[in-house]
């Protein structure tokens, strides 16, 4: 190296050091407490009509309140309404609003605002909350604080699916606006107001001091938008982030637990990991064939490999086994039984690779579609492929980007449009997973009821049970679900692999109020609520 170059290199190094030395960390100059929490997705203005993913729903719950909400045990509890609400026949609901609630612009939250919140989405082309509006027959404002909803039909799910989901919005912001998604003022009545948003960069939430449940414990929440999970975890380790809306893998639990000031939260979640069969396509149209696969796949083993201790293995009845209305069912791993079932179907001959031949002499070789960029799901496919190979079934894995995969599995998001796949991996959101109607919407072959029946599962027994049972109370619903689980367990339209826990890590030196519970994220209202009311 010549002298000149050495000098250049030295100068360069000096410049770097100089840069490094000047300026501090992201300023701590704001008065009061401030926390920096990464948000893993750009969710626009976090407005109720424009959320992108469940991350947006999580965060916008801090800005918008709902009449009901779930507590840390995932029980439904009244939030904006008083405890003395009445429900008649799961059809007529009368609520009295808790006094003293205001929107962030100072306007009062009254019965009229609630009525508006439940009618306005019906006028919105791109709102999935229309479903809630459409179920309502009429809304009566009884007085300023009291409101009565009458549904078109009794619905035991509505407290959760309707009243705990619909965000209460400020009428003066939306009144007369044709397309609500163009409104960028995120004005709700929740405990935080959106103070600043820069697209692709960050959000700043500020506490609402006179919030009706008490002043939030953290004054300012800053949320940089960060999508790379390794970088987020590095920043949490370095203390630059207090937490994130994202999750960590089970392989990281020990590493974080060994760190002083880090706490890992493992919360039960209601989103199952599923393997779907295309039940309309031969040979998956045969119950015995699907049963054979269920016997050949070691569900519990796969669950343990993928998630360690941080998951509940799936059951043939689909419903999470610790829910009160779950039937007592479990998978038995029995490759010999699988072979017997396959031979019973006449798939006795094998080719040179050890793959069984079907009635036309073609090998039993199928495609399994999975989502690119989701490492856990591709690993699930790999494990299933290995286990099915043992009984003479060949799987070819197709890893596709999300929309491409959905175009095969769920064309136009309309199950009556059919489907083009053999097997696929699948997962549903947490909100769906603890809803009473979950199993029915996944399995009923009347596609107006079974809106999520991506397996194309057709079972007279199942449909009959649903059609014949009048459900007006939760007891009746739970009794029906017990029977339905038996049917599904026998006919195997899908394999429920696991209910994985939500694993998150938080810095407890920066903030010690983190609370997490079933089906929630640490970024929830309970984490920031004043002690006395929490």
């Amino acid at each position, binding site marked *: 190296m010549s002298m000149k170059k050495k000098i250049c290199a030295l100068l360069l190094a000096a410049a*770097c*050091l100089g*840069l*490094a*030395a*000047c*300026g501090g*960390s*992201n*300023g701590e100059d704001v008065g009061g407490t*401030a926390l920096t929490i*990464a948000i893993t997705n*750009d969710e*626009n*203005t976090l407005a109720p009509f*424009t*959320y*992108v*993913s*469940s991350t947006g*729903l999580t965060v916008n719950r801090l800005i918008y309140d709902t009449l009901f909400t779930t507590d840390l045990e995932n029980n439904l509890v009244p939030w904006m309404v008083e405890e003395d609400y009445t429900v008649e026949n799961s059809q007529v609901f009368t609520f009295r609003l808790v006094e003293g609630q205001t929107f962030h612009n100072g306007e009062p939250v009254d019965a009229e605002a609630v009525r508006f919140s439940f009618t306005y989405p019906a006028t919105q*082309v*791109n*709102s*999935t909350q*229309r*479903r809630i509006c459409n179920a309502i027959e009429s809304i009566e404002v009884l007085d300023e604080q009291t409101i009565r909803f009458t549904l078109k039909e009794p619905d035991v799910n509505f407290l959760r699916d309707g009243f705990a989901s619909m965000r209460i919005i400020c009428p003066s912001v939306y009144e007369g606006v044709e397309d609500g*998604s*163009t409104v*960028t003022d995120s004005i709700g009545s929740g405990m935080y107001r959106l103070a600043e948003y*820069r*697209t*692709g*960069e*960050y959000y*700043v939430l500020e506490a609402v001091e006179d919030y009706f449940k008490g002043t939030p414990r953290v004054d300012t929440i*800053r949320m*940089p*938008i*960060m999508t*790379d999970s*390794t*970088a987020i975890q*590095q*920043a949490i*380790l*370095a203390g*630059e982030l207090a937490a994130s809306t994202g999750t960590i893998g089970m392989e990281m639990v020990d590493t974080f637990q060994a760190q002083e000031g880090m706490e890992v939260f493992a919360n039960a979640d209601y989103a199952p990991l599923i393997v779907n069969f295309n039940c309309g396509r031969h040979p998956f149209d045969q119950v015995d064939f699907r049963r054979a696969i269920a016997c050949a796949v070691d569900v519990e083993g796969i669950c343990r490999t993928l998630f360690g201790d941080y998951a509940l293995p799936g059951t043939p009845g689909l419903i999470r086994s610790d829910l009160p209305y779950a039937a007592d069912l479990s998978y038995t791993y029995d490759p010999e039984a699988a072979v017997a079932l396959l031979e019973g179907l006449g798939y006795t001959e094998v080719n040179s690779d050890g793959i069984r031949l079907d009635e036309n002499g073609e090998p039993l070789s199928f495609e399994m579609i999975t989502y690119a960029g989701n490492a856990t799901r591709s690993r699930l496919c790999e494990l299933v492929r290995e286990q099915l190979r043992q009984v003479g079934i060949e799987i070819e894995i197709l890893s596709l*980007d*999300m*929309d*491409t995969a*959905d*175009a*095969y599995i769920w064309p*136009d*998001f309309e199950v*009556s449009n059919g489907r083009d796949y053999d097997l696929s991996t699948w997962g549903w*959101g947490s909100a769906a997973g603890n809803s009473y109607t979950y199993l029915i919407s996944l399995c009923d072959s009347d596609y107006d009821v079974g*809106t999520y029946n991506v397996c194309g599962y057709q079972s007279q027994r199942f449909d009959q049970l649903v059609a014949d049972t009048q459900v007006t109370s939760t007891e009746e619903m739970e009794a029906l679900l017990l029977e339905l689980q038996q049917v599904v367990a026998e006919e195997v339209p899908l394999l429920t692999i696991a209910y994985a826990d939500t694993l998150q890590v938080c810095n407890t030196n920066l903030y010690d109020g983190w609370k997490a519970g079933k089906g929630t994220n640490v970024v929830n209202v309970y984490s920031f609520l004043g002690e006395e009311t929490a």
Partner: protein
Amino acid sequence: MKQKLTHYLILLAMVIVVNFFLPRWMPGSPVRTIAGEDVGSLTAEERMGILEAYDLDKPLYQQFLLYLRDLFTLNWGNSYSKRQPIFSLIGSRIGWTVLLAGGNLLISSVVGSLLGVYAAFRRRSKGGAAALVASAAVTSLPPFWVAMILLSVFGVRLGWFPLYGAYSMWGGYTGLAAVLDVLRHLVLPLATMVLTSFMMFFTTARYGALQVLGEDYIRMARMRGIPEKRITRSYVLRNTFIPVFTMVMMDAGYLLSGSVLIETVFSYPGLGTLMQEAVEARDYPLIQYTFLVSSVLTIAALLAADLLHGRVDPRMKEVAELE
């Protein structure tokens, strides 16, 4: 000249057409983006309603005409997924991308060329060969790995540089402090990019220099006793400059595509991630216009390279005139 311009105009027309059809050939539809995650609970009419509201139910040729109209009237509208004007979305990102990718282009071409010329001059010595092999090794490390090592050493352990963002979002810096703040945020992503991408310039410059070094007139110059320094400056560097210049112009075309990986790791708000998000969301208008902007830059860079080529390389000029 006129022929050249028509060539690039035809190219531009092709790009405009492709940018309309490419996103629509991708499987999937923007409905999920427009309606949110609960898209499955929509009824068929509700889904139709969405398509109508966004003109997606019209025949393709009508959509194409609408696209042409919007394109030329500069009425680019809102993004499906971000629900904000596409102009301002691109505007808010473009500066950061130019800073990061442009900085990389500048530094890696200079560093790469200098190393390359050095390696050419010392071709037969250990130093030259070592520079070559070491450069090959460094540039073939997985970029995210380099990024993470830099992040964990200089960001987490030593705490010299910030871990995310393009500036201190809550720092409230102004003036010189703000400039320094931006530079501090730039160091790690830029270093990652340079370390993983300078090889192309290295080999090109080295090749260019070797070509000239073997030429008779250089040997003649040496024999005539012209000082080595002058040979380097007046012959070798000038001749090395041409291929490197071509490379730079070609890379400049890709400037606006940004670098998805590095932007993601360092949470840098550039165009690369915006494009990727647009593609993943099947956000047709955002895909169209972001890629269009990027393609237009590519074309401009190619055109500039063409026009300047004759000027920098006299040989090319002769060739051009002959034809």
